[in-house]
């Protein structure tokens, strides 16, 4: 064997093992991805079967004939329109309310000095330490006392003041230079003008984070609706679907899964159009 071929052999050996390593890495990641997406794909495929077939004894991966009958069925079995409207109302009002109040409070904590500011902000942050499940009993009493039990307001009002959103918005406003406000003051703008026409418009990316987080959380939430809502006409989508699943006699698997798929659609939109913002917001809490 000449030295030349030996060198050539050695040279080709490394890339091969490296290629093998990276291929096995990708294969492993692909399998993990299959486990992650598989259940969702199965849900979508099953929801596209007619209501009777999905009760069959042999589970099938690919539906024999695609149909939207299960979607029609779920709208007949529960008042899906009402569930969607209720969920949308709660979600949108919580999100908008949180964006407005968090922007206002975050701005004050970042840009306006007053005595006791640090202490007050510390107290606001401290409320994040106590889990919502612990305060739910007194909150329920409070809501009852206000005459709001079994209304959508029972979900919306307590969710609007947000410590985490305030924290995020304060961070955001701290990142905007003080000189902007000083320049506005020299031009004769008062504190209100300075906020509304200088700082607030610049804070839209921060607001988007607060809004998307709130949207995702409240669209999906289950615990508070379960406690606060009694009559079915006030149910939100997750609560309605769990109730429908509970009365198993009434619905076939495909029908209920059609409802589940519908409940995923808004989250999917957020995922496609606001994924970056959502990721930023979700990890923001860890940099405290």
């Amino acid at each position, binding site marked *: 064997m000449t030295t030349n071929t030996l060198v050539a052999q050695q040279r080709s050996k490394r890339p091969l093992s490296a290629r093998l390593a990276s291929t096995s890495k990708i294969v492993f990641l692909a399998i993990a991805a299959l486990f992650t997406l598989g259940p969702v794909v199965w849900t979508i495929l099953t929801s596209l079967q007619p209501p009777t077939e999905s009760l069959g004894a042999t589970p099938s991966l690919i539906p024999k004939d695609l149909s939207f009958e299960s979607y029609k069925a779920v709208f007949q079995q529960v008042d899906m329109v009402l569930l969607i409207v209720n969920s949308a109302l709660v979600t949108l009002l919580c999100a908008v309310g949180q964006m407005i109040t968090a922007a206002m409070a975050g701005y004050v904590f970042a840009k306006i000095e007053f005595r006791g500011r640090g202490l007050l902000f510390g107290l606001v942050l401290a409320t994040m330490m*106590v889990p919502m499940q612990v*305060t739910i009993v007194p909150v329920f009493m409070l809501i009852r006392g206000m005459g709001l039990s079994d209304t959508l307001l029972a979900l919306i009002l307590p969710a609007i003041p947000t410590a985490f959103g305030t924290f995020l918005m304060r961070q955001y406003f701290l990142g905007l230079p003080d000189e902007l406000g000083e320049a506005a003051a020299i031009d004769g703008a008062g504190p209100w003008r300075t906020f509304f026409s200088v700082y607030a418009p610049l804070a839209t990316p921060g607001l988007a984070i607060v809004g998307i987080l709130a949207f995702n959380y409240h669209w999906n939430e289950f615990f508070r609706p379960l406690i606060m809502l009694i009559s079915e006409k006030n149910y939100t989508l997750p609560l309605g679907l769990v109730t429908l699943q509970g009365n198993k006699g009434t619905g076939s698997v495909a029908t209920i899964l059609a409802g589940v798929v519908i409940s995923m659609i808004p989250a999917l939109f957020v995922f496609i159009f606001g994924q970056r913002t959502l990721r930023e917001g979700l990890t923001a809490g860890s940099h405290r």
Partner: protein
Amino acid sequence: MTTVTKTPQATEPASASRDTAARTRRSERRLALVFLIPTVGGLALFTFIPIVGSLVLAFFKWDVISSPKFVGLSNFIDIVADGTVRRSFLNTILFVVTTVILQLSVALGLAALVQSKLPGWLRSIFRSVFFFPLILSAASVSIMMSYLFNQQFGLVNWLLGHIGIPAVPWLNSGPGAIVMVILVYVWQNFGFSFLLFLGGLASIPREVYEAAAIDGASGWRQFSRITLPLVSPTILVASVMAIIASLQIFDQPYVLTRGGPGDSTRTAVMVIYESAFQQLQFGRASAIGLVLTVLIMLVTAVQFRLSRRFVFYS
């Protein structure tokens, strides 16, 4: 900020600017007050007062109908003696330990693979995929999983049947239900730790790995000697956040099993819910809630200690 000159010639403009400064200050205070009221007032009403209320209620017996009665520590004595409450706390701890270990190791492994040399488009696809379950509702996910894991018709048992495993009674046996709650919870939540790890790994400089590769360190050696120590601050943060979240586990076991069979998947929050809103024992529910809060605060305190002692900060 306007500066006030003290020379006598400038008296007039100075007092004028002092006037405007005072006016600005007043209007700034008004703005601060108006802007803070919704958040601070709201949090006081819906978080602070309820915390105090919970603290007080824990020492009372109250069923809403009759007036509250002071009972001292008897709620706490009751819950310690109650087998269901004890079981639910043990279950919660079991869920915390298992889900946190699984969640963190899956997330760190996948994050390390995704962050290593990969074509950019593949990296962004995998990043999106692993984060996807996080945005779904726990209720919807649990419904969908309850069908996937159905003993007779479920796809999971059908697939297991093909490799010779007889139908597993996922929802109808204690151990099956426990494993299923853990799997469903981890499936939905590992994406959060994954995101944290992606951030942590991205901050490790590439040169460290290149130097290690030149010295002939293998992939595994690089992971255990470089990645693990350098990512330890993120591991701490991720585990604390995961522990706190899983101490509050409710949606998955509620929808999947309602706590059953028996008490085998009943959790602390589920007992709070049942005590308060099914048995109308609000004092007892508050007492259980307090115990849970203390657990959560302990975790936070331990985090503070650990982060000073063990974690490597570059």
